């Protein structure tokens, strides 16, 4: 058990590598990449040692090992955090460090170390991928949801930095997305998912008071969560567990690029290929699936609750949806990107219908062969001097034999070539589970729906894999680059071969008992022994074998038999016509989001800014101020000099007459000045009113400052400079005061 005390070291090694590179080793390229590879190498060794000790400790599943410490105070309780190891973590520890190591070694070659056009920010690249490795390893080992969320976001940061690694890159055609925009898009979309997950986490934390998995998945907590009801405004009353599960699933949708937040993954291909392999195939995107697997007891808390439907639907639909788009893509990396989305859909669907073991198994096998495929495509791109369009490739079989054979191994694993590839076993188990569920619950049920979609998706996967192989490797080279393609150096091909080995052999770890007779399905026993083993269903296995082979054959038939000549359009275009253009443009989701969400946010921002600057707060003051000005100028005109004298004299004479018992009769000028007085006031007020209407736009605060100034100017006019007017005002005031008193 000693090994488990070193658990917390695993994420620490790459982090020290990151810190050392950033602080010190930046200028020295050789030092920085060796530091990075050294760091991940140590984690890999420690990881595998932990994995094997875990495998050999008897019934390891019951009591996961936890090392915790108090992190920060919350009211009078403390929030503990720490690392944890249980079967799911163990198998991830087996896969993640190894794949990362392979990709680190690969990227030394890919980034052109030793050649003249080596990337100027070479060491920064290794710093970022080491930080990413820390994030991924930390995520696997976290024993509570908060620490998981923290590493989750650190990975988001690294994916942003790495996608936008070549931020100076500009494309002639404005519509094509540049790395920096792709990075931003990735960060914001995943951030939306993260916020939804944060809300779920907060809801859980406020209800349970603790985020550690052990505490959450204890029976009484799960029972409490399942019982408690919460009413949401539009949705109605739901069990709390379902709401939390769906919210947390939102995070997984964002991170694993499931429909509807899938748009960022294909654009993430703008980043260097090792990044696509590392982040957007093997590890980060599978973190979403890992999260759902980790929270599986919560998902299963409410039997047949709506959350099962949501997860299964999203998974299955994405699987089919993505595979249809993959068929119509010409860029070698885009095809793989969509195939990743579709394979992730597979795993999510599997977890949706309760196939915990099958989902986890497929997660592991998929990481291996998808990483292999991406690295293969990377070496093809380097071989063809950064050519990415499959239409310009062809005939690389002779020129790049190792890449060809490893790529074929990965492709066959992806399409599930029967018996020898890992993909076949893991995908088959999911289909078997779906089939068995379908048998139990009949046609109108999620398992049937999932089985149907996944079967079609399986065929399409095999088809586009076949298409991809024949387009890139078979036939004649269709462009200048393709002719001069050359095999990539050993630092790139060795990882390919190692990954190919695993892509083929890993399946045997999860072969159902019935086939090998005596032994038991090791993977199932180790990971999910509390779940019932899925019985072997021969028809399903046959069906998936047939699908895989026919898909591949059909792909070869269309593209391989009569290899396309240079510049010859894709035969599928003619076959599918308008449907093809829709598929090519990814169902126009990018344009849809751009128009609605992005334009909407910027529009709202413009609106608020105007609101703030010109429309309400400041402007409201000026508007009413303008209105005030009109009123005051109306008053001014009413009070202007000739009128003042008239009025003042009028008041004076009337006042005096009163005081001399009214014997001095009011003379003629008084009457006409009174008449035009009334006329002029009316005109002024109307002019004032339309002024207010016209200039309602300006703000309130300046108005108060401004209005006082206007009133000040108006009162100032009463100070006419003539002492008799002053004396008159005194007399008038006295009379007024006494009158007020009398009337009171």
């Amino acid at each position, binding site marked *: 058990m000693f090994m488990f005390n070193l658990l917390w070291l695993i994420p620490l090694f790459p982090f020290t590598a990151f810190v050392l590179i950033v602080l010190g080793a930046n200028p020295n390229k050789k030092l920085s990449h060796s530091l990075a590879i050294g760091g991940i190498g140590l984690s890999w060794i420690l990881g595998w040692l932990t994995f094997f000790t875990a495998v050999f400790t008897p019934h390891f599943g019951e009591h996961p090992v936890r090392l915790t410490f108090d992190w*920060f105070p919350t009211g009078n309780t403390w929030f503990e955090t720490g690392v944890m190891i249980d079967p799911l973590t163990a198998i991830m520890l087996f896969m993640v460090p190894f794949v990362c190591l392979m990709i680190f070694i690969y990227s030394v070659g890919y980034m052109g170390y030793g050649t003249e056009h080596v990337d100027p920010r070479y060491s920064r690249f290794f710093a970022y991928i080491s930080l990413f490795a820390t994030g991924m390893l930390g995520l696997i080992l976290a024993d509570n949801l908060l620490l998981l*969320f923290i590493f989750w976001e650190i990975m988001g*940061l690294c994916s942003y930095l790495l996608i936008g690694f070549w931020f100076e890159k500009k494309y002639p055609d404005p519509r094509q997305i540049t790395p920096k925009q792709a990075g931003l898009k990735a960060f914001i979309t995943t951030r939306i998912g993260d916020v939804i997950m944060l809300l779920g986490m907060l809801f859980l934390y406020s209800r349970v008071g603790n985020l550690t998995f052990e505490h959450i998945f204890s029976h009484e907590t799960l029972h409490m969560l399942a019982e408690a009801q919460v009413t949401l405004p539009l949705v109605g009353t739901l069990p709390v567990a379902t709401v939390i599960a769906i919210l947390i699933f939102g995070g997984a949708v964002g991170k694993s690029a499931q429909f509807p937040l899938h748009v960022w993954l294909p654009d993430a291909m703008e980043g260097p290929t090792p990044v696509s392999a590392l982040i957007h195939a093997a590890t980060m995107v599978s973190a979403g699936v890992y999260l759902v697997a980790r929270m599986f007891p919560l998902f299963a808390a409410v039997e047949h609750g709506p959350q099962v439907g949501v997860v299964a639907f999203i998974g299955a639909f994405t699987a089919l949806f993505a595979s249809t788009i993959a068929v119509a893509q010409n860029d070698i990396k885009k095809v793989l990107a969509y195939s990743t989305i579709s394979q992730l859909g597979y795993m999510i669907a599997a977890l949706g219908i309760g196939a915990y073991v099958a989902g986890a198994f497929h997660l592991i096998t998929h990481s291996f062969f998808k990483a292999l495929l991406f690295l293969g495509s990377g070496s093809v791109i380097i071989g063809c001097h950064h050519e990415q369009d499959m239409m310009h490739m062809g005939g690389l079989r002779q020129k790049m034999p190792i890449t060809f054979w490893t790529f074929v191994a990965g492709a066959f694993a992806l399409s599930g070539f029967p018996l020898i590839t890992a993909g076949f076993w893991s995908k088959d188990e999911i289909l078997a589970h779906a089939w068995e569920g379908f048998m139990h619950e009949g046609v109108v049920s999620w398992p049937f729906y999932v089985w149907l979609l996944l079967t079609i998706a399986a065929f399409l996967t095999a088809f586009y894999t076949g298409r991809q192989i024949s387009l890139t490797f078979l036939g004649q080279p269709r462009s200048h680059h393709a002719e001069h393609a050359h095999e990539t150096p050993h630092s790139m091909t060795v990882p390919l071969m190692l990954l190919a080995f695993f892509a083929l052999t890993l399946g045997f770890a999860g072969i159902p008992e019935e086939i090998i007779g005596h032994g038991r399905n090791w993977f199932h026993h180790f990971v999910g022994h509390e779940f019932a083993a899925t019985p072997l269903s021969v028809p399903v296995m046959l069906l998936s074998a047939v699908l895989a082979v026919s898909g591949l054959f059909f792909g070869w038939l269309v593209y391989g038999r009569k290899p396309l000549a240079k510049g010859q359009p894709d035969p599928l275009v003619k076959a599918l016509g308008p449907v093809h253009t829709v598929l090519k443009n990814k169902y126009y989701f990018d344009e849809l989001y751009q128009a609605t969400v992005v334009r909407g946010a910027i529009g709202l921002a413009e609106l608020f800014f105007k609101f703030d600057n010109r429309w309400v707060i400041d402007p409201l003051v000026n508007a009413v101020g303008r209105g005030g000005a009109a009123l005051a100028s109306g008053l001014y005109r009413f009070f202007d000099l000739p009128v003042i004298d008239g009025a003042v004299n009028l008041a004076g004479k009337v006042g005096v007459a009163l005081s001399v018992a009214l014997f001095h009769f009011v003379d003629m000028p008084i009457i006409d000045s009174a008449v035009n007085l009334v006329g002029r006031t009316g005109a002024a007020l109307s002019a004032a009113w339309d002024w207010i209407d016209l200039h309602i736009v300006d703000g309130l605060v300046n108005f108060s400052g401004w209005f006082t100034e206007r009133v000040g100017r108006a009162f100032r006019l009463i100070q006419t400079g003539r002492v008799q007017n002053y004396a008159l005002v005194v007399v008038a005031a006295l009379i007024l005061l006494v009158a007020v008193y009398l009337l009171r």
Partner: protein
Amino acid sequence: MGFPLLTVILFFPLLGAIVVWLIPKEKEQLIRWFSIVLSFIPLALSIYLWIAYTRSAGGMQFEEIYNWIPVLKIRYHVGVDGISVPLVFLTSLLSTLSHFYSAYTIKKQVKEYYLFFLLLQMGMYGVFMSLDFVLFYVFWEIGLVPMYFLIGIWGGARREYAAIKFFLYTLIGSVAMLLAILYVYFNVGSFDILEATEKFHLIRPFAANIVPVSLAFWAFFVGFAIKVPSFPFHTWLPDAHTEAPTAGSVILAGILLKLGAYGMVRIALPIFSEAFSYYAWVVGILAVISIVYGAFVCMAQWDLKRLIAYSSVSHMGYVMLGIAAAAFALRMPGKETSAAIALNGAVLQMFNHGIITGGLFFLVGIIYEQAHTRELKAFGGLASKLPTYYGIFAVTGFASLGLPGLAGFWAEFMVFRGAFDIIPIYAVIGAVGIVVTAGYILWKIIQYMFLGTFNEERWGGKLVDMATFEKVTMWPLVLFMFAIGVYPAFIVNLLNDATTALLAKL
């Protein structure tokens, strides 16, 4: 009483101001270095204060009470507790950094500059330490006048308008507060804040006399809300920040905004607890609007400094949300831990925002010194030419958008954790602010300034990476961002005891 630590920290800047005043105007270099060295002493003392503050004892420590104006029962009563210790430290840290930074950037009227700065520093210390209403009000206003001159004399283009707008806004708020202070005085019989916390709601229970107590509460609230600034009273902030000199806007954003929030936590919440919880929904709405509205308006800005100013409105919205949640919880039984967490989050956000936005304004100043323009469209591709500047700006930017592992995340997490449990709808709407914040920081700042291609013809040889003094100014702040991000307990412990004690009393 022992060594009057607080009084020494409080009046040290005044002593410094007098000494600077004696130095003849011509010896600018002497003035600069003297005030930098001078500002280290209160920094050292406030660090000592932090260490010497025994957390277990809790409550007010280092209290000093002298009779100032016995005839009106006004006393010189200073003391610090868990909430004010970090803020006092923040004041000293940001002031020292500002002194250090201005030594290299302020060229005209150096002597007056440092005079006003030291007076401002004294004002800020006074507010965080005083436990007597009149003393609190006196230092609140003392902090106002030097800031007016700092913006007015050393500011940008529209500095006069910004200066007088700042002064008028804050004066209206504080004058309303004066009347409320007098009202409390006549009811409690003395100007002492602690005494008022115990006695006021017994003498004037909210239920019995709703109108006068509400009036007094709203007078206090408006006075503090203008300073925070929360939504309707925020229009002075963008002008004041964009026009203030770099060091001025660092202090303005770093500490002056905290005076309002601190006032709410120290005065409005404890004394008017029933009134505050009765009106907590209004405060909550204002807070949420500030968060979302502020974030969206940031999205539409093209002037970098104005953008960061508006981001302060949005970030201070979190503080208000935390306080509103804590107030709301007073009426809900059984929500003590969530209220404590929300209040912890609010006070931590005050500290974080000071560090992060202070850093952001320094960075704006650095680029402005070289480029003399803050137009976002003018820059591009700086990442390749100014790597360290890009690195530090990215870290500060990410801290501000609340990336976990950096300071910003913890405060937001705690505020939302508390708020979610008490007022879920507000928290959900507020969460939209997080996404938009990520949006405007990455899209507007990182995208336009750092990524993309570097236009040679305009900035050819002109832009050079950060000078050593700029790095030295930024490193302590970046260090704090990481420290709080990785292990927030060292500051949250302090806050936690104070907030739980404060909430327990209500």
